[in-house]
């Protein structure tokens, strides 16, 4: 039976969630030979300030692109976390920014709380790359797409001249996730 992995990236406008949705989907579909779809918030929802992007990855056909039983939820705002955590499936993964999401939910899912925005600002001097750090974390925690494919995907989606900075951000995310995995080995 083909697998279907559903990812929802949520937060507010300007956080670059749509971009990382595209990178993930293209990495899976073009470079890893899987099937993928990507959809995003639009119009009324986006004008209200919220942002949401969904990626579905499968090795079979994807007949419907809306995420309904989420495997991995990234929430970069408290509101997004509160709003969407109910759609997270049992044993799913919730990744949150530790600064923006202070009230962490509990349930039958794994919560990965990491200083995403803080790392972007302090380590790389640009909060604009917070999204790519988050992508590194997603990639490492989920393992759903190969690192090589994601790096290809990043290069193919960022402006010329900013590739190195973005790859550095991706590596920062991978590093944060690795540290988290090491620290939570026993509870996994």
């Amino acid at each position: 039976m083909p697998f279907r992995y559903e990812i929802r990236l949520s937060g507010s406008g300007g956080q670059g969630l749509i971009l990382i949705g595209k990178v993930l989907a293209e990495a899976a579909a073009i470079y890893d030979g899987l099937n993928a779809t990507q959809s995003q918030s639009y119009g009324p929802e986006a004008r209200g300030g919220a942002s949401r992007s969904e990626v579905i990855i499968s090795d079979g056909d994807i007949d419907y692109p809306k995420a309904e039983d989420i495997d991995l939820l990234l929430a970069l705002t408290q509101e997004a976390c509160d709003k969407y955590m109910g759609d997270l499936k049992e044993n799913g993964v919730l990744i949150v920014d530790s600064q923006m999401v202070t009230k962490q939910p509990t349930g039958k899912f794994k919560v990965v709380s990491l200083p995403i925005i803080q790392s972007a600002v302090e380590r790389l001097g640009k909060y604009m790359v917070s999204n790519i750090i988050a992508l590194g974390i997603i990639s490492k925690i989920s393992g759903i797409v190969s690192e090589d494919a994601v790096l290809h995907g990043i290069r193919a989606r960022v402006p010329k001249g900013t590739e190195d900075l973005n790859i550095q951000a991706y590596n920062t995310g991978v590093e944060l996730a690795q540290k988290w995995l090491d620290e939570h080995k026993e509870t996994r």
Partner: protein
Amino acid sequence: MSTISDRSVSDLLARASALGNHHLKHIFNIERNFDSLSSMIEKNELMDRFRFGGLSPNPGKEMKLIVDCTEERSKTLEMLGCYFSLQFLFMNIKALDVLQKDLIEAPNRYDVFRSFVIRTGNDFRLLSGAYMTTLLDIFLPQKKRPDFVVCGVGTRVDQDDIDMGVIDTGPKHREILTAAFGALNTEMLKYACTLHFHLSEHVGGIKRGYSASIEEYHLLLDEQIQDVVILSEMLNAVPILGNMRLFDRFDREILGRYFFHEGRDNKYHEGFLRGLLGEIRDLMTFEPPESTLNPKRDALRMLKAALFAQRTAKGIHGHTSLEVLGKLLIDDRANHKNYQRIYQALTFFETFRFLYMLFVVQEEEISLESDENSENLQKVALAMGYVDKPNALVISQLMIHYRDHQRIARTGVENLIREITRHLDSITIFFPMTHPKVDGGYRGNVAVDFLKTSRFFRGTRFWEDIHYWMDKDDESMLSRFVDDFLSLPDARQKALVRSYVHWSNQTPYPILALITILFNHRPKLVKTSFFRNLTDGYINSLDSTLQTVTRLSQIVNYAPQRLNDFLANLSEEHLKRFTEIIQSPLWPGDVEKCRQTLNSLCRMYLRSSYYFKRFIHRVFRNYSHFIGYLNREDEIRNLADGLYRSLDAIDTLGEKLDTLGDYYDFEFMRLGVSLIDGAKLEDVNREFTLVSDNYIKRLFDYCREETINAMKKTAPKTQDILAIFTAGGHARSQAFDDDYDLIILLDSDDPEIQKFCDRIILKMNKRIIRRSIMPHYRFADRFKHYVTTFGNIREFFDHPDDHAFIDKSQLLGARMIVGTTHFYETFVREIIQPYIFSQRKEYSRYLRSEIASRQTAVLDRQTIDVKESPGGLRDMENFLFILKAQFEIGSPISEALVDRLSDFLHSEKSRKLKALFRDYLFIKHVRDLYRLMVSDDDHLQKKYLSIICLSVAKSYRTDVMTGEQLFDRIQIILRQNADGIAEILEIG
């Protein structure tokens, strides 16, 4: 690579590598599959039927050939994807080449841009349409195919994604369509671009899928106008493939009703216009940041919204904004000039955006702060035909033109909005309610009917036309609304209030505006249960979701004055709740700045006394667009300086006087905020005194000039015979006094001159009162004139009553603001010297007995009167008057005076005097903060003192005391001061 057009493909890849990184996907596809594709074509001897060296005029036909020569589906899809990538790159390279050629040859670059945008859009639609048709033929063979029509609903030139709307005949066959479009979507993501089916997703329907039926559109849209973004997308629909009859039915039943139809029900059209105008208003009032460009936000969105509004108002059946504009340019000759402006802006921004996305990245926001981007923008500039000039690099030229076109776009849209609003006014369903006196008077209940009618429009954000009629001076609509509301039984009123509150759920502004209009026009209503319920219900209905916070924050941009009125009038409880709602920060960006401003304004009102609020309210009522400068003291200072400097350039005296008042208010607010934020008292006092003196001097000049202008004969000369003194706090160079003690002295008994001077002061008086400061004229009550002559004073002091010592203190403490040195010397010689200094013993006796009489007063445990308590401000001032009289020093109370006085005392008393004065200033500081933050009252209540403790701590750089600690400290100081004064004066 194979032998087929090897070279052309290599050249293509080399050129494409200079484009944005998103082209890597296509390069990757070609490098991976081109060999297989070319061998397959060679093997099938189809070489002469393919155009590999350039853009194919018939890509659908060539794709069909590929399908025909492969049997395995995965192979077919790979080959089709590779072909698409090839054609896609050829298309973009060709577009650039033609643009370059046209820019050199054509005289008008806007025409070149227009052709470029149209051609590129058409080429992309042809290629992507052919690709989708071929793929659908694979995934949904004709014989299995149910009825449907696929419509393009987005911008044709967008290559990043394709927005589609799929219309079907109902849920029966939807599963087949969903599976086919799912496969199409996956394939498109790999080789072309993402498909988005927002329209169908939004319409929803009984069964999930990528499509929706006309019946489902009816279900969603018939009873309520939906979000304008959905409607705009829907009205953009252009059929690409499928059953055209189905589209015709959709057009007739759904799309047609959003267009204006003379003499028919136009509520759908009105709803669409209200949505568009709300969107345009938000965009127009947004101040674009200087550090980023965003062509969609900066211009395209508003341009397109305005054009689409005109399209439905004038019944133009064009699909793209350029098509609509083209028709308007021909048909609407009266606005031709404005449409030309819009044409320039639209073609410029469409081209800029397309080229940026082509060369750099498929993102809307362009940061100007990164070095990489200036290199990237240079490519865009060169492609747009800019050439380096000795004094301007291409990138500078581009940036200047970008901002120029932004202005052109705004002007064009502003003009269009006026026309659209006029059109809305003429067709609105609310007309009978906004004009209740027309046609024999409105027969229904305006309050009830308005809500009932507006339910259909719930969620739209443009209600300014209705607010205009509500806010109108004749109050015809407002009166009718209020009267009709109050005529309802209590229970019905409550229910109606609830319904209004519910109606405002998604759009908080209309009810906020209604509450503010009621505040302003019907202040007596504020105490009624109707008003309380409305405000209470409204505030409680607000939540802290991103959408609500965003909507509330946006009001800062488009209705700052209304927002300021609203916040200034809210009760403390409501203001606290409102402030709590907007606490969650949004992601750094445009709206977050507005949220921060709103938060600062709320907090400023929250921490201000009623007295200080009036200044803030007035400043931002007159200069509402400066609310954004709230936390930038330097900017506020610059604005105030600018106002002051502009006085000389203003033509009329009336305007000069208004601006002078605004200058005073601005500075009062700035310095008040500064003191609350912990500035040093002496710094604030110094600045305030300068402002206050400037104000009085200018006020006198302008009022004098106005009086002279109004006189028919020559005005008397007053240079050395008239002076204005301030007494009390202003004389002591102390800020934030709630009254203005003025002494107007005239060294002449000529009744004509006195009358002339009285007139000047009368005018000054009117102006000062407008600042919420009460002017007091020390001798006016006694002599029945604003102006007091030396003769009046002499007569009074020659026959003094028991209170004459108070008047003497006023004169002794007075500071001259307007007047000559000659006058001052005369004043000292003829008044101060003979009546105060020469009578110092008697004068001091009165003051000493007043101080002594207070010694026995018992301090209250909950309240301190910092002015009249023993050791309070009054005692300290009287004490200093005694010393001044004793040592014959005429200057007002200040640190300099204390230094001079201490020179006359022996060292112990001198030290004591300085310590007393320091404590006096501390008490004064506390009183000023209390006045600004709690209440304009000298009786400080223990329970409220905690409010000012943080400001006290900031200013003195100490730990924050509790209110109780501060209260105790003040009491100790007062006792010490009372003892200290008694000790130095040797009382008791």
